[in-house]
């Protein structure tokens, strides 16, 4: 290779890298644009209190979105998260209250909040693992299994709570949803931690790399010695765990758990993951994008209300902006190829 060619190549390499970076940044650019527009139309949008509001609202479905990232990376999907949030929230609530009484008395006869957390996490993880097994071993598409899960877990939640809400927890329980550390709401910190751990797992461990391999080409992954079923089941276990955590935090935040909680979360969560640049065909994307996607979704809902956009128009705009965000991402990525 001549010196000239060499120069050409490394310039090209730098260029390719820059493009690839731009591709990764697309959701962030879109988010910033949205923030700038909202702020210019209504400066109060940028008040610290509002920013923490948005983050707090985002944190619950953000936690689930982090789990969803794993599942979507392996070409799966989980429609059951909303129902699982309700089920696990109720489990935590029932454990904490020692029953299904709807009473708002703070002092329940139930167990310590730590047991309640464990109950929510255990039920969520088990439910996730179970769905993962059906996907992996019986080869039923994840869409179907978790569509079934959506109905099943909602039914169980109704049965557990007997249809009504279970409310009023100890302040320690409530702290997980309503507390602050400095100026930062506790759920936001939980979300950040979950995202950080997921980021490390996905980028720095063999498991994380296997997740990408399975999503990219399951057959090739299997042939390369990756335990595809194991990765699948674990990924579903992870989203189950995240749903359980979200269910607990939501119950703590609302000081109440009920069977209708979390209805419709699945689509919001999936939207956040996809807006963040993770492909529904698996194998590409990651947690950083998901966090941005989740914040973007939160900013959108908050901003339109702050701007006083009329409700019907709001729905139309939310739909259009979500499509635009992904279209922008696709466009940038295409340019950088």
């Amino acid at each position, binding site marked *: 290779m001549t010196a000239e060619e060499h120069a050409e190549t490394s310039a*090209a390499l730098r260029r390719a890298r820059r493009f690839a970076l731009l591709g990764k940044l697309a959701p962030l650019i879109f988010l910033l644009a949205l923030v700038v527009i909202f702020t210019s139309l209504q400066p109060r949008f940028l008040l610290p209190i509002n920013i923490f509001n948005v983050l707090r609202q985002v944190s619950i479905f953000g936690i689930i979105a982090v789990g969803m990232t794993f599942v979507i990376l392996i070409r799966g999907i989980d429609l059951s998260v909303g129902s699982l949030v309700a089920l696990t929230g109720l489990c935590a609530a029932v454990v904490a209250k020692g029953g299904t009484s709807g009473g708002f008395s703070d002092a329940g006869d139930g167990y310590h909040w730590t047991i309640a957390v464990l109950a929510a996490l255990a039920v969520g993880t088990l439910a996730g693992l179970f769905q993962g097994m059906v996907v992996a071993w019986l080869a039923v598409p994840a869409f179907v299994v978790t569509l079934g899960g959506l109905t099943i877990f909602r039914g169980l939640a109704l049965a557990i709570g007997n249809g009504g809400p279970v409310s009023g927890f100890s302040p320690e329980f409530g702290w997980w949803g309503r507390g602050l550390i400095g100026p930062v709401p506790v759920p936001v910190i939980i979300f950040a931690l979950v995202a950080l751990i997921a980021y490390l797992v996905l980028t720095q461990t063999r498991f994380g790399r296997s997740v990408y391999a399975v999503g990219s080409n399951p057959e090739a992954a299997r*042939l390369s010695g990756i335990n595809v079923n194991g990765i699948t089941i674990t990924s579903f276990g992870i989203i189950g765990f995240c749903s359980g955590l979200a269910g607990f935090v939501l119950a703590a935040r609302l000081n109440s758990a009920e069977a209708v909680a979390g209805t419709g979360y699945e689509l919001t969560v999936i939207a956040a993951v996809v807006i963040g640049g993770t492909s529904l065909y698996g194998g590409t994307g990651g947690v950083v994008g998901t966090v941005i996607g989740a914040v973007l979704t939160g900013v959108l809902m908050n901003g339109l209300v702050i701007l006083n956009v009329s409700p019907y128009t709001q729905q139309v705009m939310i739909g259009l902006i979500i499509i635009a965000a992904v279209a922008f991402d696709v466009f940038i990525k295409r340019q950088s190829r």
Partner: protein
Amino acid sequence: MTVRLDEVPARAGGPGRTSRAGPPVLEAAALTKRFFGVTVLNEVSLSLVPGEVRALLGENGAGKSTIINLLSGVHQPDGGQIRMQGEPVQYLRPLDADHAGISVIRQELSLFPDLSVAEAIFAGHLPSRRFGLIDWAHVRRETRRALGRLGLDVDPRLPVASLSVAEQQMVEIARALTRESKVVIMDEPTASLSPKEVENLGGIVAQLSAEGVAVLYVSHRLDEVKAFCETYTVLRDGRVISDGRAAETEIPDLIRDMAGRSVEIGRGRGGAAREPGPVVLEVRNLASRRRGRGEQMVRDVSFTVRAGEILGLAGIIGAGRTETARMIFGLDPVGDGEILLDGQRFTPRGPAGAMEAGLGYVSEDRKDLSILPHRSVHENFTVTSPVAPGALGRINRGAETRLLASYIERLGIRVQNTRAPITNLSGGNQQKVVLARWIARQPRLLIIDEPTRGIDVGAKEDVHDLVRQIAGEGVAVLLISSDLPEVMALADRVVTLREGEVTGDGPASQTTPEDLMTRMTRHEGQTMAAEKG
């Protein structure tokens, strides 16, 4: 297998043909293509006149497939012009090239797994009658004709997914034959074919030529090029280095033009220096399970492979070589018989289990079974975990990078950026990465299925050296290859399979390609009785 002799014209193609005159049907004029600013094609010109069969030659990554992509509307050129019958054309989509009369057999199979063979052949061109209803009779007739011409014996109603790679390749070829094309472009159509099918294809190329169809033919098998093609163009680093008449040019000259240096081929021979060690793998009366299709692909296969030995497994399409390998590696359930590893009965528990026992398997199906698309070259290399992770599964990126770099060097892999998706590499270079990922694991038994599929002549020698070297280090190698010269060059011993049964087993030095061919193909009445058992 039926060969419809009446379909194959008596006149052989290639050497000695009269030179053609007249205006070109397709011209590439000074085509330039850049990816990320890297010039991949630099003012490449070539032309085809009706009936001409032109070879397009070059090392892996020279730009052959890229030209084809420009000529067929997959990519748009950054400079230069494409002319059809003298008129400049600008294709926006493959559809436009298709309408202009250009058919392409792609390097990577691009078939429809869920469709029947007949429909896959006619995809996009189904003939319709009134109300847009499909003329199925016509489809069936033409499919039978095309398959007959190729000597391919598969039921047109079977789904494509149930065919072997080689059969799929034939279907891909059949697809181009059913079109009324002015130009047929073939990008390494024979990479996974065995001699029998290659011979058939030669007849077909000659027939197309006789019908006035221009053919652009890409292959790394230069003997084939000499036999089928009239003219050739050699590319190196995206530039035209030479062109001329195939009959008047010797193979070593072609190789020199491609590589820019002279390459000695057939350097080594099988087991000359090596002393085989103890038996590593023994296969006894292995048989596969019946599939829904009703056939049992492997019926009775026995052989042994020793440490430091390269065992060649030869056979034609459907002989059951790949199926045998898949069973050994734990990819498919064993129907009957047994596998012994170091004399111990071995029940492979999936590929992961096989790998733990020290096995490795390079699949013949690069696109579907090897590559992780969208993932980087680095990740494609490390997917077999050639570097063990640390605590908590933490990966050791530094060590991985160093190991990969050493294989890039050793195999001459052309790659600018190991972080870029593997699909940015040329086909041959992808194959080298796949080989590297397995060799780097240092297996005790390595099964390599069509290891040099799509690899250029020079690089093939590199791969062969590497295989000899690992065998020299005591690795048992099971080599499956449809390329007989490759089997002859590499194997210490050759086992021939036919229709799932062993038809021969002996030292490579005591056999000839002709012997092998005889044992690979049917002789009337010879083993009919055995099959009934």
